[in-house]
């Protein structure tokens, strides 16, 4: 029964070699190696001739260093040492390139404001305390700005493949919701209620407004205090001219994610929590009709001696132990038994996933005994999921 369902194989090389693939979104829960995987895909694609930019949200310095950069910032930086043909398939002289950048959400937000408002108004917005909190908060802004940046990179036309590493949200689904939530807020009833008084101007506004509005502001004043409400109102009034822009951009990015040429890769580790999140994500993508390329199962334990089962290995270790001889073989057999147990536990988890999602293609990346420190480390990962 266990081998009845083998998932279709996920062919990452075919995906990155296909020039029609323009955006790859890597998603998954935190701690599964998503950022490293995104970088490895980017490197492999570049060395197979694509012009790639990797957009990450993970501030891990080690990742930057493994790509030969001292740090990453909000501008794409060229990764040195990329060699065409180093990734198996020599594609001739049209060497690819790899850029990497890390999202600075406040900077990105500031740039939108500066681009959409006249200088006076922009200055007013940037100085507003509510804006400053909003633009540097994690709750939704990071997700929104990641999508915004993706739109910018796509419009720039400088790269033919963009790889996005999504924010480490509590749930991997957040990044799909957050832009809409922020968009809904910026475009919603609440905002119109809040902007209304500022348009009427001054403190007299309360009298001209209907009772329903009075109740809402009353409650908001109770919760937030009058000063907060004033800041929000000022902010919103200043932002008024930009609404069209915000909405358009949110729509544009959402459509971009559904367009042909976009592929989602769900990254997971063979652990119950990570695979549960991966399942939710697969279901959600299907509901939104977003193009799922497949599941990358990271850190999969393997054994070169899989023909020796855990039970036989354990029994052999016990035989030797009882005889009091060959301690090295006892250690090796015990370790092997443990590893085989882990192999089969992981296999079971992967099978559960495939039973629930039989049509989702899967590729595996074997566990690496050491952390990734340089381009060669990233290449090794690329080799594992590639051909």
């Amino acid at each position, binding site marked *: 029964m266990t081998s009845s369902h083998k998932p279709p194989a996920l062919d990452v090389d075919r995906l990155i070699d296909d020039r029609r693939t323009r955006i790859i979104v890597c998603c998954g829960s935190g701690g599964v190696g998503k950022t490293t995987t995104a970088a490895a895909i980017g490197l492999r694609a570049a060395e197979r001739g694509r012009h790639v930019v990797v957009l990450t949200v993970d501030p891990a310095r080690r990742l930057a260093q493994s790509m030969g950069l001292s740090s990453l910032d909000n501008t794409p930086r060229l990764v040195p040492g990329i060699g065409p043909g180093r990734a198996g398939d020599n594609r001739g002289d049209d060497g690819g390139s790899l850029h990497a950048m890390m999202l600075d959400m406040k900077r990105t937000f500031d740039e939108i404001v500066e681009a959409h408002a006249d200088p006076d108004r922009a200055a007013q917005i940037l100085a507003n305390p509510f804006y400053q909190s909003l633009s540097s908060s994690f709750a939704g802004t990071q997700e929104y700005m990641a999508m915004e940046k993706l739109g910018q990179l796509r419009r720039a036309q400088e790269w033919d493949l963009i790889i996005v590493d999504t924010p480490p949200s509590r749930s991997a689904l957040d990044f799909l919701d957050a832009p809409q939530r922020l968009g809904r*807020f910026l475009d919603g009833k609440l905002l119109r209620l809040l902007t209304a008084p500022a348009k009427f101007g001054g403190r007299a506004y309360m009298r001209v407004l209907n009772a329903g509005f009075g109740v809402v502001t009353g409650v908001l004043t109770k919760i937030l205090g009058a000063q907060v409400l004033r800041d929000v109102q000022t902010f919103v009034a200043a932002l008024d001219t930009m609404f069209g822009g915000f909405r358009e951009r949110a729509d544009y990015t959402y459509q971009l994610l559904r367009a042909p040429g976009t592929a989602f890769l769900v990254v997971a580790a063979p652990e119950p929590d990570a695979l549960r999140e991966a399942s939710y994500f697969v279901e959600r993508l299907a509901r939104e009709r977003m193009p799922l390329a497949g599941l990358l199962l990271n850190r999969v334990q393997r*054994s070169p001696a899989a023909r020796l089962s855990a039970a036989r290995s354990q029994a052999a270790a016990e035989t030797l132990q009882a005889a009091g001889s060959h301690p090295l073989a006892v250690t090796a057999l015990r370790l092997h038994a443990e590893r085989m147990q882990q192999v089969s536990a992981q296999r079971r988890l992967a099978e559960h996933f495939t039973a629930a999602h039989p049509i989702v293609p899967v590729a595996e990346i074997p566990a690496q005994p050491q952390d990734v420190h340089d381009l060669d480390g990233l290449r090794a990962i690329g080799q594992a999921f590639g051909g």
Partner: protein
Amino acid sequence: MRLHVVTGKGGTGKTTVAGALALALAAGGKRVLLMEMEGRQGIAQLFDVPPLPYEERKVAVAPSTMTGPGGDVYALVADPESALVEYLEMFYNLRHAGAALTKLGVMDFATTIAPGLRDVLLTGKAAEAVRRKTSGKSGGRVYDAVVMDAPPTGRIGRFLNVTSEVSGLARVGPIRGHADTVQNVIRSPDTAVHFVTVLEEMPVQEALDGIAELRSLAGGGIQVGGIIINMTRPLALPAGEVRAAADGALDEDELALGLKAAGLDDCRRLAGELAAELADDAKSALGQELQRARLDEPGQPCYDLPWISDGMDLGGLYRLAAALRDQGAA
């Protein structure tokens, strides 16, 4: 210690450790509340109970000890919307405001968009539980300890530093007042933040960065507690042989003889393969040793939790709780 905040990088087993710590603290007749902050129902999975609401439910009985009978672990999932409704009810008697606010998008605004508010609402619930007294005349605390399964390390500084998060938003006013009360609980000497990690480079770096961040927060006063090293495994090889194994210098002839003596086939080839597995294991053991040394830098107590090889279940959770007690973490 009355409020234990448990954080860690994703994938380090933060929720499991928070659960084990709650069990360990409840042992011997104590009453402990375990709070989940991010609505993934990880605690329900862990204790094998139905999904938890925003309401305290008993999820486990802690083991009895020499000093007292078994205690009780209660749990709840704190979500910002319910916390806001409760807050409105408690302070303003606005019981039915919730539905109207949701319709207008105020809920969205207050719980997910307005920066800091969400965190004040969540930490506020923990602060309330810590301070809650029984209604009887004795007036004792309802909970001996509260354990918070907090957001991951990358966000912990912001999450706990509520006052400054909110101060950008509210310099005065009721939310500010509430934030200040919460802050007093978080910065109290009875509160500690524990960091869960595994012995890999990235999680260790995040734990060190998180500790440094908490220490550098303006005003100080947020106490770092223990570093909990999760999923540790005993060395397969004797300590003296690890280096040689990692360098691939194991005696494969001897290994092959041993396999033959155990009655296995194809011993030459098998010896080579098993030696490769030992080398992998030795390499990762050396890497782990390096990471462990780095965890000494902050000078906080470290506690080891074993890897539960047969899959995490309730039995495993009790074993982890016992390990925490044995090492004096609870």
